[in-house]
């Protein structure tokens, strides 16, 4: 059986769903970051597969952009996370309620 575009897209969808579930269910901020990374990389898989399928490098270029953005996001996010942990001693999402309306 040859591995084709469909398999890559299914993989991407499965990864995206896992990431989405993670975003919805996780209460730990660090795990939330992992979930968002999964989301972004699910998209990257899709981009790379379609780029290869069409012989168009634009998709792979986008994937690189997304990797760069994800890296910078995690850098900022982790910084904030550490700062939060130092102040409050936990990284539980439910405890972050200072924005409560």
């Amino acid at each position, binding site marked *: 059986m040859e591995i084709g575009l469909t398999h890559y897209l299914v993989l991407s969808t499965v990864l995206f769903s896992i990431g989405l579930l993670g*975003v*919805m269910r996780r209460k730990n901020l660090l795990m939330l970051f992992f979930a968002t990374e999964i989301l972004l990389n699910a998209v990257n898989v899709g981009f790379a597969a379609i780029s290869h399928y069409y012989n168009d490098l634009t998709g792979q270029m986008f994937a690189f952009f997304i990797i760069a953005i994800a890296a910078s996001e995690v850098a900022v996010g982790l910084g904030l996370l550490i700062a939060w942990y130092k102040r409050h001693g936990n990284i539980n*999402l*439910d405890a972050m*309620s*200072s*924005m*409560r*309306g």
Partner: protein
Amino acid sequence: MELYLYIALFSPLVGALFAGLFGASPKTLLTGVVNSSLLFASFLSSAVLLGYVLNGQTVHVEMMQWIAAGNLYIPFGFVVDQVSVTMMMVVTTVSTVVHVYSIGYMDHDKGFNRFFSYLSAFVFSMMVLVMSDNFAGLFIGWEGVGLCSWLLIGFWYHKESATWAANEAFIMNRIADLGMLIGIFLVYWNTGSLQYDKAFAVMPTLDNITLMYIGVFLFIGAMGKSAQFPLHTWLADAMEGPTPVSALIHAATMVTAGVYLVVRANPLYHMIPEMGLFIASLGAFVAMFAATMALVNRDMKRIIAYSTLSQLGYMFVAAGLGAYWVALFHLMAHAFFKALLFLGAGNVMHAMDGELDPFKMGGLRKSMKWTFIMMTLASVALAGIYPLAGFFSKDAILEVGFVEHHYVIYTVLLLTAGMTAFYSFRLVALIFHGEERYKVFGFHPHEAYKFVLIAMSPLAILAVIAGSFKSTYFDMVTKILPNTEYHIHSEVTEWTMIIGTQLFVILAIFFAYKKYINFKGENKEFEKRLVYKVLINQYYIPYFYEEYITKPYRELSTVFWKKVDMKVVDATVDCIANGIYKAGENTRDMQNGNLSSMLRWMVAGTVILLSLAVAFGLAVRYADEISAVLSGLGA
């Protein structure tokens, strides 16, 4: 001449606004003096205009455009012609007298300034009513006098009976005004104009049924304002207002507006003689009906009010039979002596600390000589004794009935003339003659202020001499009204009638004097009789209205309030409000500030938007198939 017209029209308005400025402050003599002077200015201007009209000219101005939309054009136009100048003279004369009189009468009242404001506003509305050259302006004045009448009847608003009477008058008049409004609509609908001259010029081309409808609806309005049966009950109750108000509004001016309307619309009523006959019959009926109630009543002002009602009936008889100038002449003469009678009654009321029952008075002629003379004069004029005003006008109406061969109406009016004489002199005898019964009640009667008596004197003079204007008046007013002269052909018949009527009336006066001059106490035997009970209860008509109209209406309203308003309308509104409130209550958790649940909502939103995008994308792709299916459904 336009200047005089504007002065005559607007100086009462200026007075009303001026006095209104001091409405809430305690009595200032200034308002009384200023308003009376402004009214006097209005009177002088009217007199100048009268002189102008007597020379055969009329004034017609269009002050400004009021409503101009499509084919509808209604200006604020005013006309001074032979008919309106008569009304203007009556209104300004009586109102000037009443204003000066009120300075004395309302002397100790807290609402002195407010009273003058209302009174002048009334005169302004009345002037608009009589001077307007179109039905719309007439209607504005018509409603204006209704409003002022309401304000003034309920002037002593802390009295429950006064506010009740004010509301009764207002509501009854609104019922009639609806008829009037429909009449005005019909006029516009069928003639395309509300201007008197244009509308009446088109009317001969209309068919009889349409004219009949217009005539009937306009007359319903007149019935309300002039308190004709069955809308008459408000007039007697309106006597709750201060006496000058009764004299000005509910005797001399406003209640005669209905007669004025019929006279003004004479080209219309001329074309529908059946309606005219109905008006005359109703008038004759009311004349007698009201006079019988006046025979036994024990309230001085109500007796005079019923007398007014009865005299309005006379006017409608004349107007209905086509003798418009006679109606207008009686209107004028009646305004003078009836206002005088009311003002005299006001003096008596003051002397008696507000007591209205003539059975508790008696012998007042010693302490109130001038009031006695004036009230007697007014009563003689009202009874129609030669050579006072009432003789000329009332006798003319009787002659009209006779000449037009309506002998039933003639007989009714003749009998009523006897009753009029009887109740007028019953009142005079009870108040001014006989024993001084008031002493038991501890009253200390005193004559009114001198300036009040002087203010009343013009009316007394007019009540005596107004009859001598008859031929001049006839020459003037018949330039625009039908100039039928009513002469009985045989001289013997004529003299027999005049002398017979006079004798009948004088006999009635003597009978009244004989019966009441040595009045000792109430006749208990008589009071048990059915006739007395029916009359003192006003034929049970107010009772009937209360029992069979007011109460069922009230119950119906309660049902509608509890069943329809509370359970349907309110419930619907509450339901909508509660729904929104509950939706807010239930969705506030969305905004709980928890990052995790916000993320969940975000995902849900993304899913919804994505599915929508997919759905629309599919819909666009298969648009042709979908429309084919839909058209298949439709076909």
